[in-house]
């Protein structure tokens, strides 16, 4: 194949990270900011997974009919995948906390605009 799929995957992860940071910093609506943060997390996860990927390798599950040395040479690197599992859970739980905060703030300010809610009143 002409284009390396691992490299392309890195680019996808990079674009997700850039889109996420852009949305979190420059969009005014809080829900959009949060969606951006979810994309940022997805991008980082994809980056990690791509790093553990081995082109032409096998899944890192040791089956009885494999030999250790063959497995060690062809399997993908499982450590990054373990990190991603943890990170997905962390990301989802933080998301829930932020959404809860947004619901309370919408009740108080009657708005979802970051400019209105987060304006520092000099206190």
């Amino acid at each position, binding site marked *: 194949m002409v*284009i390396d*799929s691992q490299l*392309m*995957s890195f*680019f*996808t992860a990079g*674009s*997700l990270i850039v*889109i*996420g940071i852009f*949305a979190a910093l420059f*969009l*005014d*609506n809080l*829900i*959009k900011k*949060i*969606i*951006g943060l*979810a*994309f940022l997390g*997805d991008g980082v*996860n*994809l980056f990690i*997974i*791509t790093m*553990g*990927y*081995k082109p032409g*390798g*096998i*899944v*890192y599950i040791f089956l009885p009919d494999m030999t250790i040395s063959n497995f060690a040479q062809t399997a*993908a690197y499982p450590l990054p*995948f373990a990190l*991603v*599992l943890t990170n*997905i*859970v962390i*990301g*989802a739980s933080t*998301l*829930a906390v932020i*959404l809860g905060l*947004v*619901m309370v703030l*919408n009740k108080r300010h009657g*708005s*979802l*605009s970051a*400019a209105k809610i987060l304006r520092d009143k000099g206190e």
Partner: protein
Amino acid sequence: MIEYILMITTVLGAIIALMQRDLLKAAILTGIPGISTAFLFQFLLAPDVALTQAIVGSAIVPVFVALTVLKTRRTEEES
């Protein structure tokens, strides 16, 4: 070949979700990059992570965001 299509849907889905004015649509469209990355994980030899991401990215996150939108306001206000 399928992985390139998935990569394109991931990025395009993310951009389209953020361009919606209707926040409920944006919340539901968040699932597209979520499920695409799940398939990408499967392609990148990480089936267990793909399972988790398929649930979290395509169901839990969009539903949480959509519930918040339903409890607050549906359209983005003019600034």
